[in-house]
């Protein structure tokens, strides 16, 4: 009978300053040195981290009421439209929304210099943001237009709400065609000229709890430099196993998280507006999750290393856009991080889109918060569906 722990026991140890916390990198070495059983007996929490483009990000903002009052029907923040089909002075600014006058891809490949992600970064940095709004006017909200500036400090609420973040695993993207293509996985050179990938591998939160044995509604997390929460599974939450040709499990598939946090707690170095040439605007998000080591089985997964975790190599010139499916093989994160992989017999240079150094920093910050007693584990009130739930993606058929 191995070790068994409860959230309450771990939190009591955190409060007493006695919790043993290791980052996901550190725990790999520890398990290699002394084995699973001994490590599980010692370690209470393993911290993870990731920092990369997460397009499904955005913020609900409440601007407060002007005099006379106004029901804001259309809103622009630094000329980027925000969604207003909600209450009078609320809006949702999405990370991928682009400035109204953006030329998009009319001059291909478009630059997408400023979008919702940049508005969020500027808000978090404390900068003044130009607010413009229009309304049709009502008896209770007579004002029809407004132009002013706001800052994060002088609006009521600013809630980061990201419906699909922290992708469990992702494709390694390549281009088999004869021309350069511009994708959400970056610029891909022709004829397997490069390969881009985007997770932090052995530090990546959902790869370290592939069964969703600990992550659920109410899990307290590092989000954008502040404290946030997992509020539901993300959209396109299809957890499962990645298997090699022989049917062996070599990694996890595509679970995702919905996360929420107070933007006012966050910092611009962990929420960074970004864009992909020829594709669009987005937001880099820093996210870290603590994994309570409730038992040896949970540690076994939390201690998986880059050598044991794999990603599928996918052609983004033909297979991906046409939803053909399949892949060009599996590569380990150790291979991806080495700087080259072999695809169809050709050596292909690799580059990440997510920042491994920042992921490492997040795991370390989270460890520090827990060790100081500033951060207690949130026990999920409901776990998220795991690989056994058999969730798969529906396709959109054109009728």
């Amino acid at each position: 009978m191995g070790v068994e722990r409860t959230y309450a026991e771990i939190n009591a140890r955190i409060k007493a300053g006695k919790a043993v916390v290791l980052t996901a990198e550190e725990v790999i070495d520890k398990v290699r040195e002394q084995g699973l059983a001994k490590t599980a007996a010692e370690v209470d929490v393993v911290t993870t981290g990731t920092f990369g483009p997460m397009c499904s990000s955005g913020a609900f903002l409440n601007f407060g009421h002007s005099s006379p009052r106004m029901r804001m029907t259309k809103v622009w923040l630094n000329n980027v439209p925000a969604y207003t089909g909600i209450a009078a002075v609320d809006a949702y600014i999405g990370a991928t929304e682009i400035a109204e006058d953006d030329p998009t891809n009319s001059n291909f490949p478009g630059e997408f210099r400023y979008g919702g992600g940049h508005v969020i970064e500027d808000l978090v940095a404390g900068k003044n943001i130009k607010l413009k709004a229009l309304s049709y006017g009502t008896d209770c909200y007579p004002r029809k237009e407004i132009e002013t500036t706001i800052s994060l400090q002088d609006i009521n609420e600013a809630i980061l709400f990201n419906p699909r973040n922290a992708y469990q695993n992702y494709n390694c993207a390549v281009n088999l065609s004869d021309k350069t293509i511009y994708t959400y996985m970056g610029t891909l050179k022709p004829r397997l000229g490069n390969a881009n990938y985007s997770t932090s591998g052995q530090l990546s939160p959902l790869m370290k709890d592939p069964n969703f044995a600990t992550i659920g509604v109410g899990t307290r997390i590092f989000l954008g430099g502040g404290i946030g929460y997992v509020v539901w599974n993300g959209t396109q939450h299809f957890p499962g196993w990645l298997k090699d040709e022989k049917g062996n499990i070599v990694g996890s598939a595509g679970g995702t998280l919905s996360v929420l946090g107070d933007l006012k707690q966050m910092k611009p170095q962990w929420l960074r507006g970004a864009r992909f040439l020829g594709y669009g605007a987005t937001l880099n998000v820093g996210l870290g999750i603590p994994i309570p080591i409730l038992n040896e089985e949970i540690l076994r997964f939390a201690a998986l290393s880059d050598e044991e975790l794999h990603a599928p190599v996918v052609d983004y010139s033909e297979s991906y856009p046409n939803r053909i499916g399949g892949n060009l093989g599996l590569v380990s994160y150790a291979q991806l991080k080495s700087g080259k992989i072999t695809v169809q017999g050709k050596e292909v240079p690799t580059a990440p889109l997510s920042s491994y150094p920042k992921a490492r920093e997040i795991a370390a910050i989270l460890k520090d918060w827990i060790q100081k007693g500033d951060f207690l584990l949130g026990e999920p009130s409901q776990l998220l569906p795991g690989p056994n739930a058999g969730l798969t993606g529906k396709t959109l058929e054109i009728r």
Partner: protein
Amino acid sequence: MAPHKIVLRFTPTTSDQPIIYHLVKDYDLVVNIVKAKINPHLEGTMVLDLVGERYEEGIAYLRSQGITVHPLTQEVVRNHDRCTNCGACTGHCPAAALYMERPSMEVQFNGDRCVLCLQCVKVCPVRAMEVRI
């Protein structure tokens, strides 16, 4: 002797002069023109690899002609505050001036290797590469 990578700026009165000829003939310097352009106002910019015993004399000559000379590393700058160390640039830098240091996976920039293709400026998701040329 490693070549010096420098950026020259020409005014309208110097951009039509045979400057490179003099560097080679009078100062015995080996010149590799990495990039050269001239704008509609006849202002010119040139990036050179320059090597030779009389390098300093050659630079003094350029300055005496009213040409400004800066090391390339002052003109191509990685903004460390904006850079997230993601590494997206490293797959595109043909000269390996931007490269990943392993195992830290931190991005390094060696301006001496830069050939000013400006690919990094295009592909950097957070626009951390700044080029003033």
